[in-house]
């Protein structure tokens, strides 16, 4: 129906959804700011005055999955990687990231069990 003039961003991993207003590297009214990847961007609903942008997510640079910017779904390290791809190429990431991810895995396991 006609109401779908606004496109919807849906994370293919966690299902998080939100309409986005811009896709690309240069959201409107950001002046000197440039994004280092093509992003799905919306107006930040949590900042009351003026137009602030909010990056919802982007495509995984390896598998092109649409992923949200949440740390459970993706990681940015010079490029965007979905967590599935991160796990696949785990050893190529610096140890700081590796330990971080390992810690995270553990705590989430603890929370589930």
């Amino acid at each position, binding site marked *: 129906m006609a109401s779908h003039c606004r496109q919807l961003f849906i994370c293919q991993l966690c299902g998080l959804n939100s309409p986005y207003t811009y896709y690309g590297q240069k959201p409107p009214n950001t*002046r*000197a700011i*440039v994004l280092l990847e093509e992003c799905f961007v919306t107006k930040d609903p949590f900042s009351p005055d003026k137009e602030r942008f909010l990056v919802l997510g982007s495509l995984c640079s390896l598998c092109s999955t649409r992923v949200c910017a949440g740390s459970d779904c993706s990681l940015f*390290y010079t490029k965007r990687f979905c967590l599935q791809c991160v796990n696949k190429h785990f050893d190529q990431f610096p140890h700081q990231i590796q330990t971080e991810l390992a810690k995270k895995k553990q705590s989430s396991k603890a929370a589930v069990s």
Partner: protein
Amino acid sequence: MDSDGRRHSRSWDWDSPQCRAQLDEIFFRQHDYIQKGSPEHKEFWAFFDRFQRFKTKRDISGSGGAGRKQDREGKDSRRSGKMDLGLPKEYDARYRINVSVCTRDIEERLGKSRSWQRSSGPGSQEISDCRLALLHFLDFSQKQSFGKLAKLRQEQKNLPIFQYRDRIVALVQSHPVVVVAGDTGCGKSTQVPQYLLSSGFNHIACTQPRRIACISLAKRVSFESLNQYGSKVGYQIRFETTRTPATKLLFLTEGLLLRQIQQDRTLAQYQVVIVDEVHERHLHCDFLLGVLRSLLADRPGLHLVLMSATINIKLFSDYFSSAPVLQVPGRLFPIQVIYQPIPPEEQSSRSEKLDPRPYLRILQGIDQRYPPEERGDLLLFLSGVAEISTVQEACQIYATHTRRWIVLPLHSTLSLAQQDKVFDIAPPGVRKCIISTNIAETSVTIDGVRFVVDSGKVKEMSFDPKAKMQRLQEFWISRASSEQRKGRAGRTGPGVCYRLYAESDYNAFAPYSVPEINRVALDSLILQMKSMCLGDPLSFVFIDPPPAASIQTAVTYLKEQGALDSHGELTSIGSLLAQLPVDVVIGKMLVLGSLFNLVESVLTVAAAHSVQSPFLRSSQHNPDCATARQPLHSNHGDPFTLLNTFNSWVEVKGERGGGSRKWCRRRGLEEQRLYEMVNLRRQFKDLLRSHGLLESEYSASSGSDHGKRRERLTERRKLHQLKRDHERQEGSRRKVLRLDEGQDGEFSSGSDTEGAGKGKNDKEGSGQDMDIQEVKFKLRHNVSELQEAVNVSQDLSSRQQALLKLLLCRGFYPQLALPDEHNSTRKDSEQVFHTKNKQGVVIHPTSVFATDPEVLQVPEDDTREMGPDRKGSSKHQLLAFVTLLETNKPYLSNCVRVPALQALLLVANSVDSNADCTRLVVDGWLELELREPEEALKVLSTALTLRAEWERLLQAQLGQSTQRGAAFQGVSRKVMEKLSEGLVRFLLYTEVSYSLRRLTAFHTQNLYIGPRSESELFHTKAPDLNPLFPGAEAKPDPIKGGLHVTSFFTYNCLADSKDLYSECLRMFWSCPNCDLYMPLTPLERMQHEASCRPAGEQQQLEEEPQGGRAGSSSVTSLTRVYHCDVCNEDLNLTSTEILKHKKQHMYSAK
């Protein structure tokens, strides 16, 4: 480049504002994403400090590497068979940020200029430090906002209704009507509209019973749909709308949707209508359901969704031919119910004060059973304000003693600030004890309540159609509302509900509360039904039909008000009233006021009567407030006091702006109500204008010069900024209550508490000192324009005052009360009054006449004995009032005093006279006896003439308003001024002595002579009796007897009457205007007076433009066809000429 540009090497100091300002020139310029001076800019530098500290710490601990930049590609990480990701070998947190900031252009420019001022300014190291901090700052804010979004989505998913999302959408798609039933906390109000919106439905209306819910839901939903400042989700309430053509989901009140149906019969503007909270069974909601039900047949594409708590669902489903029901479980924690019936010795009888002991015991029990560190507040439901203050008093003593409780009352007559306190937080170890009316059952939701105490009682307004009186009575609640109260304990965790009644009582409660439609006056409802052409109200299919007697009473009342004619059809004034979103009485006042030069005053009074009283009840016993208020009081009546108050407030606002808050506090006024009044006033004005009842304004705005306009524009911009700032701060953390919070009354702390409530924002400088209401007020209204308008209504002359009183009296009519004849011998507090239907009513203590009743008494020096128990005077007065409400006594409130004889003759629907008009009976209950027949005739005749003219002008005015589009002509000012002059003279200078009394049932038994026999009829020669006024026909009254002269005046029908045409009543009389001198009956004389005007006036009448007015005012209209039986001829004569003609025959016959 500059190799010694390292930190601290030059005169660079990160803490120096000058140094930071230089970096601001690079990163935070006027058009940058973050601008110098903005709140975010401030946040950045705070972040910067934290960031630097963090870096230093890390550098010291040696884990370093952040500063090093060796961006070599990590080639050696390549392994066989695996793809190389090309990641840098050295870890840098910078690589985790997907944002960059380009400032090369400015840096280069600065670099050039720096060559000659080398020693100062940031070096490349400082710039890159700052850039790095900025990148981290941006990343940090992105993460923060994204986190909020993720949390929001998670919360939505966790709502019980989320599981039903697809089923709801599917049901709505396949059925015209769907019922969604779910209890508190299931999320239906916020989620269902969003589900429908996102599944492709457009144009959704969602009604709410309360205005405040419209605003908060619209805010919440637009927030959840991440569209907070877009316009897809909006709300529309009485004064405010955020609706735009792009709005797809609109929250609005039930009443407003009904108004929209009036304009747009099939509701073509909506695809889906959601009616929320249908179980609350408000009058408007029940009616709306009925209207929508009949509308569905004409609108095949319309989808209707009813949302309800799980109460009586079948009723709604059945009403819409077994519509499918989707039931959603609520999200309540388990609640333990404890029945603790009040022992008989502690039960209070009706007249006694409530015994607080059972309530105290519960507080004590909680203190014993639950350790203070286990949080959880107490919510106590009582029936009314008096009960609340009794229990509050007792609990406060206990609280002061134990220091474990903060006692807070909650009811709608408290100031908003006081009401707001219940949302504040108690300090650790202390619980809130909120003592509330049933307002906290549905309208107000307080989180953190763990204990509920339910008295099982409620005070509800009921309407007594017989006495036309509202009654506030105490009832047992229903099981449904008992469950609702209980549920308040389980919103945030497991809770306890103490019921102060037995389980057997509970089982005996009615299952559901009585719907409003069965409890209230139906005047406005019936009027609206008439204007929507819904046919006979008695046969309309309501979900629960109201009692037929209520409908009948409403129809009668509307007829009395002139909104319906004798056939029950809408009159022109009635159809206008139906369009005004106000009470019939107020609508009438507005229409009447628009005719005279009193619009500004009438607007204010009408607005004042449409909002809660600005005078705070709690300040009534405060002597300081009373003294400060004194100058505002008017002994002419409460509407005048309100008028004075409003006018003075506007004056203060003009002079002192925000200082008005203090001014209000000193006088015990709730300023919020005054703000509401300004808004309403403006809305009323617009309404009158759009109905052509008021000229559009050309004055002030066009006259002001450019400079002023620009000034205003700048001011507005500033105000908008303030409003935004406020909105940002809004919803910030709640205040922590002081332990002694409940103790100080609202005023005991005096006027120097000003600003205390505002908290920390005060120090932000003078701009922040302005409160948000003041800002909104200034945005919405031009203060100087308002002042001008108000000036008009300030210092009313006694003439204008008299006229305004008359207008109010006509508006309030038939609500009139007569002072008891023995009031002068009674104490001030025991003054008694009588209305037509109710004897022995008293004046509400808030009314000015409660403190100053002498002004209602007939001055002794003006009285003359006119027989047993009859005091003759020209100074009798009546009270016209707005409401009659029975609580422990029947109280009159909002009264204005009016001169009895004049007011009655000018506004009453029924005036009956005897033959010489010395005895008049008004509306069948008030009897006036005039001493002199000569005077009586003169008074009556003047009144009839004035009334006819008033009616004519009013109809002309209304006629104007129905012809939309036509240029506003209005009633000519000259004619209007002449009428008001006449009315004022009549009101102020009629000095006729008369007695006034209420007729008893015994008197009214044989009041009228009744219809006459054929021969008598023949004798009166009825067909020959000329109408006194154009359009009116004098004919024998079939019930009362006598002659029905105008719609309200029946001549010679009172039982003691002498024969109308007996020659003895003929008296010689000379007309002051023409040369007529002959013996005339009273009726003939009045007839002549009505048509014979002084020579000068006659002239004026001829000059009146005749276009479009059917010649009703022209001289020709005064002539009529008269068939003379003697001449057997049709003659075109004026009334006087007819008289003369008849005399001719009379004398010749003798």
